[in-house]
């Protein structure tokens, strides 16, 4: 590892100042489970690592049934699933938080860090996208908000400008008759990178028989996490049926642009998107119906 300095700012403005002064030679760290590995492997070279974990706003985890969830960018996965209220409100997010790495990784890794790392395979990103999560960013020019589906711009790249940090992700309160689910395919049972992953969320009408709206997002099948809007919008207003879900899964497959690599082929990944879209939609419907 080459980098040589470490700072522990206590405020957002202090962190922003440090990052802005060093430009691309500095980076903020949350759990470190990606960044430390990248530095050690020589994939990234820095002069300064700025620890985000002592900044109160980055450690915030607060939920209310009116305002939803504010999830600080430095909150590790285990804090999410250790909270019974938040777990019950966002089972689709828990699907992701409980399958990222193993227990050791979940003790450090954060949802915000997963989003900033912008890996096409980031398991938390589709879950946050389908829940309508909004990224709250602070930087030298003030604050701004970016929808999570617009945050990643390429493998390992995101919208953050020099000096900007992700402070927190805001996830709206779950609507009545809504549900979400995330599933990925890996050859092992745990501790692996998705060959393909799909997150789905649905809002049903009061009868639980018709889709009001839906959101679908795909992992590991494009340079960035895919927001499959057309596929999800095809469900709006339709009765919950195998045919409607099949059609959405075909549209989701059409939105995928996978490559063949050591984890899987284009054909396998396209197939998986179809299967996982159907399964996550069915799970989401079941959860929306209270099951």
């Amino acid at each position, binding site marked *: 590892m080459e980098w*040589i300095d470490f700072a522990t700012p206590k405020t957002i403005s202090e962190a922003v100042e440090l990052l802005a002064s060093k430009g691309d030679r500095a980076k903020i760290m949350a759990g470190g489970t990606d960044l*430390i*590995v990248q530095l*050690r492997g020589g994939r990234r070279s820095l002069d300064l*690592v700025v620890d985000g*974990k002592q900044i109160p706003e980055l450690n915030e985890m607060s939920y209310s049934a009116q305002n939803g969830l504010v999830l600080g960018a430095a909150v590790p996965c285990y804090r999410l699933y250790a909270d019974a209220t938040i777990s019950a409100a966002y089972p689709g997010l828990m699907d992701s938080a409980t399958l990222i790495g193993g*227990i050791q990784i979940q003790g450090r890794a954060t949802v915000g860090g997963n989003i900033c790392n912008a890996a096409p395979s980031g398991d938390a990103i589709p879950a946050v996208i389908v829940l309508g999560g909004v990224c709250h960013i602070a930087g030298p020019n003030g604050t701004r908000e970016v929808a999570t589906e617009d945050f990643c711009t390429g493998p390992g790249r995101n919208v953050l400008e020099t000096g900007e940090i992700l402070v927190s992700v805001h996830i709206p309160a779950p609507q009545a008759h809504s549900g979400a689910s995330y599933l990925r395919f890996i050859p092992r049972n745990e501790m692996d990178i998705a060959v393909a992953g799909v997150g789905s969320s649905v809002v049903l009408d009061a009868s639980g028989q018709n889709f009001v709206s839906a959101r679908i997002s795909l992992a590991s099948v494009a340079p960035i996490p895919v927001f499959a809007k057309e596929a999800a919008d095809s469900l709006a207003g339709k009765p919950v049926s195998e045919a409607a879900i099949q059609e959405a899964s075909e549209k989701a497959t059409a939105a995928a642009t996978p490559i063949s690599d050591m984890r899987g082929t284009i054909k396998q990944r396209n197939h998986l998107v179809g299967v996982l879209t159907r399964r996550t939609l069915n799970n989401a419907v079941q959860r929306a119906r209270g099951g």
Partner: protein
Amino acid sequence: MPGPTHVQTTINGEEVDFLCEPRQSLLEVLRDILGMTGTKEGCNDGNCGACTVIFDGRIINSCLVLGVEVQGREVTTIEGLATADGLHPIQTAFLENAALQCGICTPGFIMASKGLLDGEVDADEGRVRHWLAGNLCRCTGYDKIVRAVLDAGQKMK
């Protein structure tokens, strides 16, 4: 160029001071600076769990924590388990169940198991296997490890 950083922390219940460079992991600090070689280096990138220690009550990979991050915190390593009265029940259970062969993964498995059993002595086989998914063993085939952890849970009641 900044020099080494002075860090004060608690390791296995004792206050410890050390100097380290910010780029050094907790694993390097334990092994190379403090001479505590019970914690093992396997993959050094968070896949194998050999370097598992307990950090403020949670199991983590010490290769993925910086030494400077333990300032004012609490770390428990394999060296902190046995007491003057003898081995920790998890250590005894690993011996009695022949849950190790080459032994490199063992400290990591024992620390990970402690992280589970301290809160859930009644964890069932499925829970144990899921919890230990972040620890790799190339010798045993895992069965004896899982049996040892279930046995240790009974002993810890």
